[in-house]
Structures are given as C-alpha cells and as structure tokens.
C-alpha cells in the first residue's frame, strides 16, 4: 500500500524508471494487480491439484493388456466395466457402508458431548473440554491405532475386563454375529468400526459444537414456554438448527473413512477397503487404470455428498 502511495507521489513529481512504471501500471489497472496476486495460487490449484486429478481421470480410461500386462493408452470403458465386477463392488460397498456407519455413530456419540460443551461447560471446564476433544489429535495416528490393536486383541485389556466382570458371554455373542463378528474384536468389522469412530470423533464434535453454540438460547426457552417437552424441543428446534454442523462434521468423518487404508489393514478381517485396493493395484501389479478408476469412486461419492451438504447450508458451520 505504502509503495503505491510512494509511486503516486513519484508520478506526481514525475519520477521515472522501470519500477515506478510498474507501480503506476498496477495503480491504474487494479485488475492487473489482482491477476498478479492470484496467478501463483491459481497455477498451484490448477496444475498441481486439478492437474493431478485430471491425470488420474485420464488414466482410468486406459486399460491393461490382458496378455502382456502393459498399459494400452487408448480410450476405453473396459476399466470401468472391470470396476463393476463383484469383487470391486464388494470393496466399494464395504467401504461406503463402513463410512456411513461410522458417520452415523459419531454423530450420535458426538451430540451430547458437543451439546454439553456448548451449553453448560463454562470457563475452565470449557477449556478442559476443548483439550479433551483435541488431545487425541496431538498424538500420532499410527500410535493410536496400534494402541487400539492391543486393547481389542483376543488377549487384550478389553477381553480381560469382560472376563473379570463375567461378561465374556456377552462379548462372545457379539462376536458370533455373522459378517461383522469374528475371532476377536481386533479381527472383526466391529473392531475396525470402533477404531474409526475413535479416531474421527473430534472432527465431528468440533463443527457440531460450533453449530449448537449458534442456536440462540431463547429459541429453546420459547419452545418450552409454548409447551414443547424436551424431546419436541430437540426434534423440532435444536436438531434442525444444528443440522448444518452435523453435516459439516459428517463430511469429515465420511470422507476420512472413505479414504483410509491404514486402520483396516491393522485392525479388521483383512477384507480390503477402497484405499487398500488402490494401493495394491498400483505398484508391482502395474494396473494403474484400475487403481485410478477405484480412486474416482470416492471422488464421485464425495462430490454428490458435498452437493447435498451445500444445499443444506453445511458450509456456514465450518
């Protein structure tokens, strides 16, 4: 700003030279100034970010030669047809179901926490709540996942606790459920689900808390004055007003679960999620087209999700 002023002074006094000329040009044409400011970020976004996405998209329209295993650089829908075979549909379905379950569960678990933190916690308690919610984010993701493996193991803490309380019958019943059960918590979908829930919960609590804080207290009081019981107040006043926050949180939990490939590798039944499938198809296998096509799946799912979320006003709560 000050340099513009200087240039103004200079042009007023008739200063010359290339720098002064540039300064004058920028002053006279604000559009050029904005263009120069934005050119680097736009190039970054365009080339590095969108460019890599398009490169990915293009790869997915190539195919792998059945015989030689070489990539054929010709346009084809073959890879997408391959994406629709039962094995890959299993993977996609499994991942989307898990992401949905994790999102719904974290919304349910996070709501009371967020509500209490937003409405009742005061002063030091509020700080404590923030800290307690954020604390898990401070330690390494891998450390947490490994710790959970030990907690959930067949000879781990949780199992020991259940046995000491003579509740292991309950645990066995839970693990006997077909599909989601297994030999122990750490090798079942239930275990994968619990760890996802733990790891992504802060991402749900924080936007939810922000949304609940924005609901005016007198709306709730007015609802009570008009004879609404607590449930009705929650259902018809609080929930609709806090919904954008819930959706904002769900964007995080849903997309993070959709893309994660480390948790299901360490905890669970070894059945692949999208991220793991992408990882194994590139590499020695060299099936980049299929890996790219699999990557397009979460991109499309998230695009639809974000479109719906935007319509619900979720981005106001971020």
């Amino acid at each position, binding site marked *: 700003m000050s340099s513009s002023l200087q240039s103004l002074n200079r042009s007023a006094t008739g200063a010359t030279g290339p720098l002064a000329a540039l300064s004058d040009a920028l002053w006279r044409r604000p559009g050029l100034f904005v263009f120069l400011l934005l050119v680097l970020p736009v190039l970054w976004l365009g080339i590095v970010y969108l460019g890599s996405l398009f490169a990915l998209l293009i790869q997915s329209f190539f195919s792998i030669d059945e015989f030689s295993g070489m990539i054929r650089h010709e346009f084809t829908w073959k890879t997408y047809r391959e994406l629709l075979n039962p*094995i890959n549909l299993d993977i996609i379905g499994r991942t989307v179901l898990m992401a949905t379950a994790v999102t719904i569960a974290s919304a349910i678990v996070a709501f009371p926490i967020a509500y209490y933190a937003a409405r009742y916690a005061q002063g030091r308690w509020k700080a404590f709540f923030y800290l307690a919610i954020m604390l898990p984010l401070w330690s390494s993701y891998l450390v947490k996942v490994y710790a959970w493996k030990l907690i959930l193991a067949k000879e781990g803490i949780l199992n020991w606790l259940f046995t000491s309380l003579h509740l292991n019958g309950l645990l066995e019943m839970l693990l006997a459920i077909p599909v989601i059960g297994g030999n122990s918590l750490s090798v079942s979908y239930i275990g994968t689900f619990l760890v996802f829930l733990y790891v992504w919960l802060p991402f749900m609590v924080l936007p939810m808390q922000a949304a609940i804080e924005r609901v005016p207290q007198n709306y709730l009081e007015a609802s009570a004055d008009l004879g609404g019981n607590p449930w009705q107040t929650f259902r018809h006043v609080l929930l609709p007003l806090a919904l954008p926050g819930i959706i904002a949180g769900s964007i995080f939990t849903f997309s993070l679960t959709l893309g994660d490939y480390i948790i299901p590798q*360490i905890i669970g039944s*070894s059945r692949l999620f999208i991220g793991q499938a992408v990882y194994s198809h590139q590499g020695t296998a060299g*099936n980049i087209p*299929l890996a790219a096509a699999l990557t397009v799946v979460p991109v499309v799912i998230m695009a639809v999700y974000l479109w719906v979320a935007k319509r619900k006003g979720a981005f106001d709560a971020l």
Partner: protein
Amino acid sequence: MSTLTLSFLGSIALAGLLVQTAGADMLSKLGPGEGQLNIVAWPGYLERGETDPKFDWVSGFEKDTGCMVQVKTANTSDEMVALMNEGGFDLVTASGDASLRLVAGGRVQEVNTALVPSWKHVDERLKSAPWHTVDGRHYGVPYMWGPNVLMFNTEVFKEAPTSWNVVFEEMQLPDGKSNVGRVQAYDGPIHVADAANYLMFHQPELGIQSPYELNQEQYEAALNLLRGQRKLVSRYWHDAFIQMDDFTNEGVVASGSWPFQVNILKSGGAPIASVIPQEGATGWADTTMMHVDSENPNCAYLWMEHTLSSNLMSDLSVWFGANPAVPAACTDGRGMQTAEGCTANGMDDFERIRFWTTPVSKCASQNDQCVPYYRWVSDYIGVIGGR
C-alpha cells in the same frame, strides 16, 4: 584391501576380459574412489551402528576407502525401481521381483566380477542365479537371501509340523483344538505362490513346474486352496511387527513368516520356532546392482567387494535373520554369525526354496500361457474379500 591391490587384480582381469569380449560398458579397471556412494536399500540393510552400536558395517568402509555412504531406504520393490529409474544412485539392493525389471529396463549395468576379488567366495548356488544373470552376464553381486518359513508356537506343536497343511486345510492341531482362527497367511498376492508350491507337492497331476508360472487351470486350483484358507484365517499379516503381536496377543499359533520375526520372538522368550516343511518353501534373494549411469563406479566396486569380504554379511545375517551370500561368513568369525545361526535362518535349505520372481504371461514351463501378476493381485483381493 588397498586400492593398489585392487587395481592390480583389475589389470589381470582386464587381460582376461580382452579374450572374453564381455559387455562394452562395464568398468574394466578400478581407479581411486570418488569419495562418495549413493545406495538404495531396504530398511535395516545398511547399519552404521546408530540403531544398535553392535551392528555397524558402513563406517569401517568409509574409513578404509574414503567413500562416504548415503543411504536412501525404500519400502517396496516398486519404490526401488522408481528410484533407480529416476537416477542419481550408484547401487541398489534389489529383490528378485525388481532385479530382472531393472535389467530389462536397462537401468543397471553388467558387473565385472574380476574387479570384485571376493567373488570367488560367493555361494556357488547364487553365482549364476537367474534373478541377476541374463545370457551369462552378471548384473550384480548376491547380497542376502532368506526363506519364508512356517513359524509355530511350540506349546501347541510339541513337534514341528511336517507340512504346510496346518495353514491350508481345516484340521485339529496337536492341542486338540481346531486351527480355525489360529493360523495366518501373508496378505500379498505373492502368497498365491505358496499355495501353488503346496499343490506342486500334493497334486502333481496339475503339472506345476514353478509356483511363479501357473497356467489358468493351475492358477484356479491355487485360488481354490486359498479360498479354503480364508475360512481359517481371521486376519492376514502384512507388517512383521503386527504379526509378532498377533502371535503374542491374538492366539495365532502357526503362519508363514520370515526368520526375522522368529528370531525376535525367540529372543524375547516366546515359545516360537520355525521349520521348512516337506513341501519346501518360497523365499527371497537380494542382489547389489549397479546403476547404468553410476557416477561413483569405483566406490561402487569397492562397496561390492566390501559386502563380500567384511563383517557385513555375517552381522547383517544376525540382524535381519537372513543368509549371507558368502557361506564362510557363517563360520569364519568375521562377524557375529555362527554356523548354528545360519542353519536356523535356513542356510542349508537352499535347494528347497523357490525364489520370488514376478509372474509374467510369457513363461517357459507353460508355453507362455501363464497368468500375469496383475491378475494375482485382483484375484487375491477377491479371495481375501470372500469371493
């Protein structure tokens, strides 16, 4: 070994080479070291005493030759190939699934074995191994090799299991309980080769010649065996440390594994042992290979000699649970390894090990009708997913 002696040996070799008319590009005479050396290696392969002061086979080399070693670790064979394609490195410790790709891609150069005086000490079984020798030309110096052993819990198996069937077929284990949920398998598609190796022994009518060369019918049979295995396995292993945890905390009692895990578990006092059952086993073998545009060829040759002549092979085989390419390293006390240690790592079982190579469709044993690796990947994903 002084540079003078090396160059002397080198000139003798040169005389021999003139008669042989070997590769045009390879070095024929060693000069002085360039002062640095860049190596792409597996994690844990190049130790300079920083992880554990007892394990150091780099700083001595630097002191003797003045070649400062820079290590770039790579976690998969693909990373290694990518780094070598990028260039800027002198050497790579390539496994069997990367080595031939590097040769075919022209990324590595033929090694003049005459410039590596200790070449004569290399295990005869490895000298012309097909994963680094193409058309009689050596594209590297053997480094380390190891089997994929059957690891088991000695409290459950009082006697070592004699067959891989404990992990492939539903059965009662010696402790009277079923093996369902108590055995593991590797989650990489290369595990299809373990199944094929098992079938090679038990169903000779399939005509499998090599577990890495499977025609459609043989491949289907292997997948069927693996589908049965899925019912026994609660979780496939991927990470060595997670597998060790599964053996200690998850009640797993038998699995294909590496001597690395066996040695660590044993040293921690766990009731663990390993065996190579009657069917034999799959395994891996690594080779030190030299980049075609290596900028420090003299240091590279000095390093190759160092790998074969120093404490490296012996100490590394203790560190990694692998076998040295120089058999003398097991016994001559140049490092910490002993004959018993080598036997435990599978040194005597070379003939029973089928070394990892990348399955390609053009294969000699099945009239070029083999199922290529990318299908192993997608189908093994299906098998693990219950298809």
